[in-house]
């Protein structure tokens, strides 16, 4: 295992410390629990809190700041955070207007956030939760854990953060988050696995000419393994599944998001975006906004995911609204 780290036990702590030092104008760390807080919180607005396992940087800590999250609670690498983190973070950033938890759909995340919500409710703090589950690679069913929350989470955090920033009520902010979730679909693939520092070896093996389709963001294996293909065909596979699922239709305006898994050069993500643009063009789906880069990663995994969000005017306005976080910034 080759990593730029000092101690497998300290990767999360030292990385957060670096984040806070590099962006002291935007974020600070909670004094006792593991949480990234806005440097200027609390303010009189709905507080938006997210969190989840570490290893997906810049998500979530890098999305704390003006116009996005008020707090992020990172767990150990690929491990859900614990309820005390969300509980303590919420107590700091609560501005009296209520709190929205944006939770990715994983058993551990759901349970830990739920426990924190219960603890806060017991103290009279109003918490609402929205669970993001945009991964079309996973079969959805009442009797399984359901779809994972992946790339759509980044878009939800941006748009919902803007809604809270402009003064939306908890009810409105929650509804916007559900609205984004209802209109967003994603699917990912990997050329190589990743290595959890504490585990010391790759989470799965891939042959030199193999790729894994339908990968999640936790180094968990995907649904199909196949011979590696040209980018164009990979884009077609991922995007067909996404488009058919919602379904996206000719005339729809979308935000097209090509995400890198951490170890993929940006130049390759632009090749993928180029193919995605061609593919959607042929279907008559119009790209109105775009995002290309490493925004929700799996450590050093090579691969990408594609996310499409069907846009309406309000989502466009909220997407364009100023945001100032370590990981996403424009308009200020």
């Amino acid at each position: 295992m080759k990593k730029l780290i000092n101690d497998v036990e300290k990767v999360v702590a030292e990385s957060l410390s670096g984040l806070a030092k590099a962006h002291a104008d935007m974020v600070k760390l909670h004094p006792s629990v593991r949480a990234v807080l806005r440097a200027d919180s609390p303010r009189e607005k709905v507080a938006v809190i997210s969190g989840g396992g570490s290893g997906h940087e810049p998500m979530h800590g890098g999305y704390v700041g003006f116009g996005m999250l008020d707090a992020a609670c990172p767990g150990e690498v690929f491990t859900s955070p614990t309820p005390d983190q969300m509980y303590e973070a919420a107590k700091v950033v609560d501005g009296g207007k209520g709190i929205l938890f944006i939770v990715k759909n994983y058993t551990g995340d759901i349970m830990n956030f739920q426990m924190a919500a219960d603890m806060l409710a017991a103290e009279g703090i109003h918490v609402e939760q929205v669970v993001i589950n945009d991964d079309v690679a996973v079969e959805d069913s009442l009797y399984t854990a359901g779809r994972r929350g992946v790339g759509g989470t980044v878009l939800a955090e941006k748009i919902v953060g803007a809604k809270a920033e402009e003064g939306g009520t908890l009810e409105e902010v929650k509804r916007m988050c559900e609205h984004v979730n209802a209109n967003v679909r994603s699917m990912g693939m990997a050329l190589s696995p990743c290595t959890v520092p504490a585990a010391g070896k790759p989470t799965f093996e891939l042959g030199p000419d193999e790729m894994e389709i339908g990968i999640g963001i936790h180094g968990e294996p995907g649904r199909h393994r196949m011979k590696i293909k040209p980018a164009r065909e990979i884009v077609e596979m991922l995007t067909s599944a996404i488009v058919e699922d919602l379904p996206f239709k000719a005339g729809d305006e979308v935000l097209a998001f090509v995400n890198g898994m951490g170890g993929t050069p940006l130049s390759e993500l632009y090749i993928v975006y180029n193919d995605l643009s061609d593919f959607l063009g042929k279907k008559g789906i119009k790209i109105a906004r775009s995002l290309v880069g490493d925004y929700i990663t799996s450590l050093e995994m090579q691969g990408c995911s594609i996310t499409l969000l069907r846009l309406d005017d309000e989502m466009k306005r909220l997407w364009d609204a100023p945001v100032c976080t370590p990981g996403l910034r424009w308009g200020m």
Partner: protein
Amino acid sequence: MDNEKLDVNTTIAILERIKDIIEANKDYLTELDSAIGDADHGINMNRGFSKAIEKVRNNQYFDIGSIFKDVAMSLMSTVGGAAGPLYGTFFMRASMKLAGHKEADLTLLAQAFREGLNGVIALGKAQPGDKTMVDALIPAIDALETAAKEGSSLKDGLAKALAMAEKGMKDTIPLVAKKGRASYLGERSAGHQDPGATSSYLILKAFYEALEN
């Protein structure tokens, strides 16, 4: 230390044993989790029980319920993932049954474990056969109750529970996961033993082995 009753000292000895067994099986559990999950189960469990034993070592106890409660709180705030709240709930619900008791016999222990299991099922909503820790815990706790009714010794009761946990654990191998991360793999989850069922078996093993000495 009394081998027929679970007193404070025995309970602490059991926790030391759990910690040792989990530590010894950290890589094994993580490997099981890397096949069908995200390669952290052993790491998470080891972190949790290391913290739990630290807390327990640094406290004075007058009832075993308090020990279980401290373990529950430690697991809840250090394990994370799915296993953290589930095992945290298991020990928390069990601790409520054990609260105020200086010692537990097989009957009380079986009742406490049943409470714990009910908590796990209420929280995780796993059915038997979903390929989770529940598949090891249900047959084990059923056996524990039966043994208690039959008047078995504590040690014999745990021996029977352990045997059933082992069977339940191994029976997860062919199952297709319906809950937790492994469920994302669909059919590909079959052929692998569930990490959580394995850690449940190891915890019961620690109970049994600590009493054996």
